[in-house]
């Protein structure tokens, strides 16, 4: 079966593109979530201190 390599390459590259995109979004989301938690807790701390 000639050209089977092309078919495999196409599928691998396609799934690769989607996987990389998904992972990059997930990573940025995790980093953002950490930042959000950090800011929220520091806000709470300063709110407690001023009480």
């Amino acid at each position: 079966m000639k050209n089977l390599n092309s078919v495999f390459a196409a599928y691998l590259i396609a799934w690769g593109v989607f996987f990389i995109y998904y992972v990059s979004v997930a990573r940025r989301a995790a980093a953002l979530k950490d930042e959000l938690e950090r800011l929220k807790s520091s806000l709470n701390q300063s709110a407690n201190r001023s009480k």
Partner: protein
Amino acid sequence: MKKNALGAAVVVLLLACAAYAAFFIAPTDAKQGVVYRIIFLHVPSAETGLVSFFICFIANVAYVLKRQPKWDWMGIAAAEVGLAFTTVCLITGPIWAKPIWGIWWTWDARLTSTAVLWLLYVAYLMLRTLIEEPERRALLSALFGIFAFIDVPLVFGSIRWWRTQHPQPVIMGGPGSGLDPTMKAVLFFCWAPMLALMILLMHSRYRLEAMRGDLDVVRREAEAA
């Protein structure tokens, strides 16, 4: 988190089923042999890309009329995901063409139009990176997104007319031409997992943008405090 993991698992399963159908259920093509099986990736990703861009268009119109940030988040998510699918279409096209025609690119009408579509939405993303103020960025990119989408049928139409003036090898004769009924069924079946993947990717990108919006709000509160 759990819901996300479950959703991702479902999508992976659907994609695996689609791949199985593409490799084992669809018969081998008499003329093209095994290579034509790329169609089960190439065509659904093109169509899913267009669906994403349509969703982007709806979100853009909604933002211009309602000015709620969620429509802006939807717009950027749909545009990026649409671009991912369009990229896959543009990569699988040449991988298909090379073994059959011996050349990577044939200026086939559909592929050329898809390339212009890709450029349009790359421009959309570039525009967004060049405007800092969030509301201005949302409004102006929404307006460009609207113009870009209404251009799409004109791009496809004019390029198809152009190619009839100068016939060139066509990667695929048209959605249904010369396709065996089993192939058609598998092609249709392969679209659903792509749409599911689109929803999964859009959902996670939307949430990322929503979090950014929240972060801005919290940052402003922190500065005020």
